């Protein structure tokens, strides 16, 4: 047991021997943020009065979804056996879309808390991050959280964790973020078990960027872990990937608000402010050194962010296009992975083709655009990048069905992923059926415990971007968890399916699919549109086609009566109001040739949720 630290180490002059750097690996909802809050309280960094629930998750969306998108680092003092320590807790994102960010956070630590809900056991993403931590030689402290829950089964899951990391079940700590039980023991254990950072104090400075956040008042705030040497306030620094130089306007630690310091030494974790306005100038994974007498070798491990999923974003009100452009420009400042370029759709007007790290990233960006910038958006069905080789042997990157070449194609390659699914063993059949229907090839299967199983599949990325996760959840009563990482490319027999309304191609509904699935896509989309598009004054054929070959067809019968024949007498105003209302309705239609298509039809036809609803109806 430790009281609050009596004599906390001073930042920038802290002996590496008393520093402990750690992160928390946990699944969404397993209580990471609540536990972090408890540690902030227990170490006196935050007084109960200041306590805002889940202090570390700053953005509203993160708070609502209970997930952490952007990691941050907090320095906490802790005294044990008369020695004052500095603990740096580095918060990590918990979702597969942000694997690279996770790997950089892990690289900034010597240890990790493996936090698992005592009522649920470990999940696939946690397992993936655990393996990542083990690959980075981190010391793992297994912790079961929520032991206060009536449904908690600490003995069962202690065994599972012990089995996974090769310790004894009694080594697994048991805590409750909610009641605070076990938190001081946990802090003590961190000091005892985790190694102190090692580095060369007299070598040229090298610090790794593990996060970079745009703040509208201060510009970009960069979070670093110093490996060698030291960084001083007011010195000139250099980003090693680009050789760009910046003045270090401010350097400090977060505890839990920013505290400027003279500098940061070996093993310390803190923040830098250089006045740059775009997170692209301060990239996660990059190495920071001093301009003068800087290091010659970077720390390694830097990668450019790779968008994997693309979707068209279009404002429902065409006049909002400049607002959307400005909004994306603003979001970009804080999101190095967000890329976009203007796109024009005959059906949807002006918009942007936007690249995302994954589906969650897409959803978060879309939600922020709608919420923070008050935009109403249509997003087209997400697709992946294809490499298309034409007959002359030339390769094109296709990120949009409209770029799919019309002529003969020699070869198409699509990105593949390696998936890990963890679920109770009763669902093995359902999972295998789903993966096979998504062109998956099984790589293996292992029992984690008597009734929990890990399945490994290789699947095309395109097959999991649409509604795979939803389907997996619904077929396993919500028990399955999923993790995936990119796993090269594979040649595939892919075709582009176009949707035609009265003979006119509607680009927004075109899709690249496997040849075997083209027919079902065509039937699904034409059927959906027949329900969604109101009857017109003339018959409207809806066709699905591969090239010039029609593969599916539906008809919207012509409307036969569209006239109000009521006796209104002298009440002309009432009649006029009715027609004005009809006319307003017409304005909100998008014209495809002469066919009036309601905005709602585009949204409903392109939303994946609607599809699964339709399926359950049939």
């Amino acid at each position, binding site marked *: 047991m430790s009281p609050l630290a009596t004599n906390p180490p001073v930042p920038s002059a802290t002996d590496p021997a008393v520093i402990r750097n750690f992160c928390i690996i946990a699944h969404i909802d397993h209580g990471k943020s609540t536990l972090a809050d408890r540690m902030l309280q227990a170490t006196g960094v935050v007084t109960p009065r200041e306590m805002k629930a889940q202090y570390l998750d700053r953005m509203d969306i993160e708070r609502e979804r209970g997930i952490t998108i952007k990691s941050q680092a907090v320095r906490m003092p802790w005294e044990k056996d008369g020695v004052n320590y500095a603990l740096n807790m580095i918060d990590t994102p918990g979702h597969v879309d942000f694997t690279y960010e996770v790997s950089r956070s892990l690289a900034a630590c010597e240890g990790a808390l493996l936090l698992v809900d005592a009522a649920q056991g470990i999940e696939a993403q946690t397992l993936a991050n655990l393996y990542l931590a083990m690959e980075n030689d981190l010391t793992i402290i297994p912790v079961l959280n929520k032991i206060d829950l009536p449904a908690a089964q600490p003995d069962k899951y202690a065994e599972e964790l012990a089995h996974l990391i090769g310790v004894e079940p009694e080594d697994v700590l048991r805590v409750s973020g909610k009641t605070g039980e076990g938190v001081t023991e946990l802090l003590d254990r961190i000091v005892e078990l985790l190694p102190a950072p090692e580095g060369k104090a007299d070598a040229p400075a090298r610090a790794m960027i593990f996060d970079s956040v745009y703040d509208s008042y201060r510009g970009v705030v960069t979070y670093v872990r110093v490996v060698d040497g030291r960084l001083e306030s007011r010195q000139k620094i250099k980003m090693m990937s680009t050789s760009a130089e910046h003045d270090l306007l401010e350097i400090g630690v977060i505890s839990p608000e920013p505290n400027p310091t003279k500098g940061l030494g070996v093993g310390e974790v803190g923040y830098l402010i250089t006045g740059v306005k775009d997170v692209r100038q301060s990239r996660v994974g990059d190495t920071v050194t001093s301009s003068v007498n800087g290091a010659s070798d970077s720390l390694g491990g830097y990668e450019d962010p790779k968008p994997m999923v693309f979707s068209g974003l279009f404002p429902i009100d065409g006049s909002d296009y400049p607002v959307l452009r400005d909004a994306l420009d603003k979001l970009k400042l804080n999101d190095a992975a967000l890329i976009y370029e203007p796109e024009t759709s005959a059906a949807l007007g002006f918009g942007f083709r936007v690249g995302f790290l994954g589906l969650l990233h897409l959803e978060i960006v879309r939600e922020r655009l709608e919420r923070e910038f008050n935009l109403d958006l249509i997003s087209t069905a997400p697709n992946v990048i294809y490499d298309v080789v034409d007959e002359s042997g030339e390769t094109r990157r296709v990120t949009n069905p409209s770029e799919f070449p019309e002529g003969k194609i020699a070869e198409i390659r699509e990105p593949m992923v390696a998936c890990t699914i963890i679920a109770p063993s009763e669902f093995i059949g359902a999972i295998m059926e789903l993966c096979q229907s998504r062109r998956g090839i099984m790589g293996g299967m292992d029992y984690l415990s008597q009734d929990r199983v890990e399945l490994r599949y290789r699947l095309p990325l395109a097959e999991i971007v649409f509604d795979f996760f939803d389907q997996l959840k619904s077929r396993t009563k919500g028990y399955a968890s999923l993790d995936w990482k990119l796993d090269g490319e594979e040649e595939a027999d892919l075709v582009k399916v176009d949707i035609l309304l009265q003979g006119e191609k509607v680009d927004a509904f075109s899709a690249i699919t496997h040849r075997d699935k083209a027919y079902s896509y065509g039937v699904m989309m034409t059927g959906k549109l027949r329900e969604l598009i109101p009857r017109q*004054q*003339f018959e409207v054929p809806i066709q699905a086609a591969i090239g010039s070959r029609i593969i599916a067809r539906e008809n919207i019968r012509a*409307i*036969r*009566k*569209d*006239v*109000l*024949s*009521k*006796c209104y*007498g*002298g*009440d*002309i*105003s*009432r*009649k*006029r*109001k009715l*027609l*004005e209302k*009809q*006319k307003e309705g*017409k304005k909100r239609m998008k014209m495809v040739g*002469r066919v009036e298509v309601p905005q709602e039809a585009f949204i409903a036809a392109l939303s994946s949720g609607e599809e699964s609803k339709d399926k359950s109806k049939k």
Partner: protein
Amino acid sequence: MTPAQPLGLPAPLDGSIPQESTIGAEHRAFSLYVHVPFCSIRCGYCDFNTYAVDDFGNGVGLDSYAQDAIAELDFSARVLRDNGAPARKLHTVFFGGGTPTKLPARDLVRILQHAIDLFGLEDNAEVTTEANPDSVTAEDLQVLADGGFTRVSFGMQSAVPEVLEVLDRTHTPANVPKVVQWAKDAGLQVSVDLIYGTPGETLEQWVQSIKSAISYRPDHISAYSLIVEDGTKLAVQIKRGQYELPDDDLMADMYTEAEKLLSSAGYRWYEVSNFSTSPQTQSTHNYAYWKNQDWWGIGPGAHSHINGTRWWNVKHPVAYSGRIRNNQSPAAAREILEPSTRDFESIMLMLRTVEGVSTSYLQEIHGEALEPKLQWLVLQELIDSTELANGRVVLTFKGRLLGDAVTRELLPETE
């Protein structure tokens, strides 16, 4: 419940109307509408301003109606004169409701004669009253004819008892031919109203109703489709699942049958819902509305229009009588129409008629955009190409069924 009234602007209590509204009045016809808000029972589909009550207390009711209507007539004559309108004879008069024949025939005549005393009446002017086939006698009809009425419009709705029951209509179908004959004997022109698309009504039942109506040889037949309005008993019954709304395709079939039977029996359409044996038997009063002429509406909830100024009276008979007896305008609110709104209304109303709208008028509104619109409408067989060559946009039969779609295409932009 009766329909919500438009919001509108406040209407002055002295009834005064903007000076602009009386400019050029000598070139416009002046008509009178008299709203009689009494019924024996409230029909399930009806959302007009009417009450199945004869006495509202406060000395307001069936007995006092004629006196209050006459007082509003005096008020109207004074307002028109004081606001610079020239004296005009009445072009048409129409008594509607409700059930005007709930009033004694001599009360209807007393109101009409007072109006004629005040304004005069054009030669051969059309004077109509609506009537319920169950509550009118041969004597009543003779009194009306002798008192200056020229035309009677019977609410027949259907010849099929099951259909009438859904509509809550109380009359016996067998009474209709009887009253039609009485009216003819009294020298009155006769119109009958039919409703199609009642929940549960079959195409065969509708055909039976039209055939019956035709067999009575009225001068005029109106065929309205049932519109289920919010707040009516029928709307509630449908919401509860007691009845099902008819399918639009069935309604189209019904209208198509009506057109076939009526035209082969010598009735020609002159407006989407109105058919007559000759141009002389078309309703002149209807045309006054559609051509945006001037009219004054007497009675609770009645609507008036004087050259771009519209107003509507307070709905409740007690509120109405209170205003009139205090020598105040009974108007609840009014609106003053923008020129573009007047164009909107003209197109909306006239496009439904056999006269249609002139292309030169539409040209002024749409300019170059008109031509492709017209070409498209001809291509879709919604407007008549021969009439178009003569400079008029007139709906084809298919165009009548899709009249609102054509109208939306040709309406001007409004604020």
